[in-house]
């Protein structure tokens, strides 16, 4: 039942005292005319409403969540406590600098950690999410070429295995997208790349390890090819959890990177956000960064604007409280913990892959990084059970499904990312469920076509939802 259906005229909670100054109302000309229909609830009813909604939701805390390319790792409790400190939550973004030295220290320390981890020279925390970071990074590339009077660079090269945000971000930055096909091994096809590169190339956007979970062995060659034609290299940090502490994008030849603090650095996804997508870059791009960077000045921390800033990407300094959570995590893991996390993410993925590959067809049968992609094309042909059906079968077993139908270059794809915070028992249990579902698919396909049956609702009619959109509750009056 919607909160509006639970609302009763005249109910409510007592939040504010009576006004202690003379009441000033807006003039008739500017006074609101339409009545408001916000819920009128007792606190008990409202609280129970959200208790109910929470019961119909599923988070990492409820169980295994191997959602490929999303890095659904455990969200440590201390992160939340630190981000809830009044010394952070109650700070106005426009307080005088001397009164926000703690906030500036958070940004400075986070930049130091993350620049060292990525091999970059500086970083902005303004971008609010990964896609926002991509757009920011591309605007830096744009500013770079413009600053050199290099106006002809109008194209961004994007592999066909990329996340949809990559081409979308390039388009927002006003670039034409050149899509290049992947090599049979899932990596960048060097010849294709060379052919695409030219004096109109602004840059390349790459995810490495790529979206099929493989580290591109030609990585140095790739960035070299792009640099040779005058383009810059953009690193999509979505998969950093696979390699942090082992390799650094900066050392692989990348000039700009965005990170997803809500993936790699353990801040929760919150049902879709807020995330944080800081963008790091090499020194020649620092002058273009948006927002402020924190610098030391006369023994105190100060905010400094870049000389040729691309301008703001949003208000203030980014999703600051999310950065607090990530810094807490960085300080906790530190020098040894960062590589330990990625090593175990990779181990867990390879363990699961190897324990499933006799049944499920792996898109690429080699060592994977932190995630792997299976193709259910065969199974679909054999049994009429699709990747979607297997995914829905997992729901009935308390496991969140892998990412479905991505990357687009693999048919009937399921992309599995266990993360390092899952134990062997959890993986073994999931392996067992996956194997059982495979057998179910062969022996009793109908059971999967009907799945899920244990969830609050069964499969939804998405076509109808899009065809006749009902996007809000209609009030009677």
């Amino acid at each position, binding site marked *: 039942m919607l909160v509006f259906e639970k609302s009763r005229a005249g109910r409510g909670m007592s939040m504010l005292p009576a006004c202690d100054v003379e009441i000033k109302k807006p003039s008739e000309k500017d006074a609101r005319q339409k009545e408001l229909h916000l819920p009128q609830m007792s606190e008990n009813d409202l609280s129970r409403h959200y208790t109910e909604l929470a019961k119909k939701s599923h988070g990492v805390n409820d169980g295994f969540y191997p959602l490929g390319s999303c890095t659904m790792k455990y969200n440590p409790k201390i992160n939340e406590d630190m981000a809830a400190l009044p010394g952070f939550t109650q700070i106005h973004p426009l307080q005088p600098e001397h009164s926000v030295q703690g906030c500036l220290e958070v940004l400075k320390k986070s930049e130091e950690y993350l620049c060292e*981890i990525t091999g970059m020279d500086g970083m902005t925390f303004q971008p609010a999410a990964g896609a926002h970071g991509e757009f920011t990074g591309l605007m830096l590339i744009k500013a770079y070429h413009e600053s050199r009077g290099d106006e002809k660079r109008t194209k961004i090269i994007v592999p066909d295995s990329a996340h949809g945000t990559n081409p979308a971000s390039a388009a927002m930055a006003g670039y034409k997208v050149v899509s290049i096909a992947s090599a049979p091994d899932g990596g960048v096809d060097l010849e294709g790349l060379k052919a695409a590169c030219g004096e109109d190339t602004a840059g390349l956007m790459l995810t490495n390890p790529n979206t099929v979970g493989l580290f591109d062995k030609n990585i140095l060659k790739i960035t070299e090819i792009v640099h040779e034609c005058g383009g810059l290299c953009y690193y999509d940090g979505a998969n950093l959890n696979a390699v942090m502490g082992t390799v650094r994008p900066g050392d692989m030849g990348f000039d700009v990177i965005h990170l997803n603090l809500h993936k790699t650095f353990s801040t929760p996804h919150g049902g879709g956000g807020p995330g944080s997508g800081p963008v790091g870059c090499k020194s020649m791009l620092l002058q273009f960064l948006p927002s402020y960077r924190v610098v030391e000045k006369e023994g105190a921390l100060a905010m400094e604007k870049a000389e040729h800033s691309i301008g703001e990407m949003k208000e203030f300094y980014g999703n600051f409280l999310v950065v607090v959570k990530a810094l807490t995590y960085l300080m906790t893991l530190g020098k040894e913990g960062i590589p330990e996390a990625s*090593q175990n993410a990779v181990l867990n993925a390879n363990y699961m892959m190897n324990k499933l590959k006799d049944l499920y067809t792996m898109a690429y049968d080699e060592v994977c990084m932190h995630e792997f992609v299976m193709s259910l094309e065969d199974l679909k042909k054999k049994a009429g059970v699709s990747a979607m059906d297997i995914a829905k079968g997992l729901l009935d077993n308390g496991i*969140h499904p892998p990412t479905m139908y991505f990357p687009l270059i693999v048919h009937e794809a399921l992309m599995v990312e266990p993360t390092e915070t899952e134990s062997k028992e959890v993986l073994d249990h999931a392996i067992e469920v996956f194997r059982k579902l495979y057998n179910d698919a062969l022996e009793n396909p109908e059971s999967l076509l009907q799945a899920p049956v244990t969830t609050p609702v069964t499969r939804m009619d998405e076509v109808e939802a899009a065809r006749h959109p009902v996007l809000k509750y209609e009030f009677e009056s």
Partner: protein
Amino acid sequence: MGSYVPNTLEERQEMLKEIGYNSIDDLFAHIPEEVKIKGGLNIPEGKSELEVRREMENIASKNQVFKTIFRGAGAYRHFIPSIVNSVISKENLLTAYTPYQAEISQGILQSIFEYQTMICDLTGMDVSNACVYDGAEAAAEGVAMCQERKRKKAFISAAILPDAMSTIKTYCHGNGMEIVEIPEKDGVTDLDYLKEHIDDKTACVYIQHPNYYGNLEDAQAIGEVAHGAGAKYIMGVNPISLGIIKTPAEYGADVAVGDGQPLGLPLGFGGPYLGFMAATEGMMRKLPGRIVGQTEDHNGKIGYVLTLQAREQHIRREKASSNICSNQALCALAVGVYMSAMGSEGIKEAALQSTSKAHYLAAELDKIGFKVENKGEFFHEFVTVSEKCPCEALKALEEHGILGGYPLGNHRVLWCCTEMNTKEEMDEVVRILKEV
């Protein structure tokens, strides 16, 4: 060293053995040696929870928490009911991903559907998306969504939040739209300038209402000018003000955007906040970002799904209406809880008290030489001008634990009041300022 890896060294070895490897290094063997880090990362060693807590608390203590705040300028300290944080701490909601798997995400999806309904109710618009990053970014997305093949010019009022202006410019530098700043005149948008310069290449007109200086614009007239030229009319609004001030719909806007921070989100040194976006029915498919719709499951049970995904990046890639993927979902949840806890009456009351207190403070400051610049109606912000630089005055307030208004240059101060400010506090400000 802290670690969230459950498996012990022995278990890792066992797992490796089972899949035919000797060591973890084997799994990284295919990575070219020359790019591998030599000698480890140059960052501090990991720390125990006790140490991390101690260090973070120490860092937080270096910030000054003001008990009393008269500063707004884009970030507003309103009352946040206890139930808001109680709800958003629920881990099933906090630790979930974007609700792609509708069957186990009905709680999150329903909360977004409710949020969309409330935003529509508040703004009077037909449709709302599930939120974007913040008010400034919502403004930029709003301008972008009005672009048409033959209309690539946007008129932007100069009297808007500076960060919003800058963000719109950044986005337009990306998407190729031309920005024309409508100058400010007497604290409001210069309507004559707009009338004179608007043309049939104009995609949209954007104003903020109440504007950066707290003033109400002649919003109806501006909309008429925009529509007269065949352009869309976008209003950036303060959501609390909508408790008592005309809705964008009532002023004739096609798109309404704004920052949801005043609706239950803490100041948090600037974020995370939330950008809301609502539009007329006709612009529904131009909205960026997630949208949740109602539908039925295979048994005819009502439920909710992410819908109209054909607009989005994961389907349309470079042809998407925006690249947005993660938004500020948990903030939208907080906003939904806030609006339910306050209710219609509570939001009205917050609005009424905010503006009433601002008018009281303005009158009192005016009496002691901080002359109020605002000429027409204003909501809960106003500008004072004084002969002397206000720096001394603001410093004196600071020493009393009061964050005064936001200095605009050397003589002007932008003040803000909300329902959190008491008469007593305001009288104290006046007393302190008199002494300076």
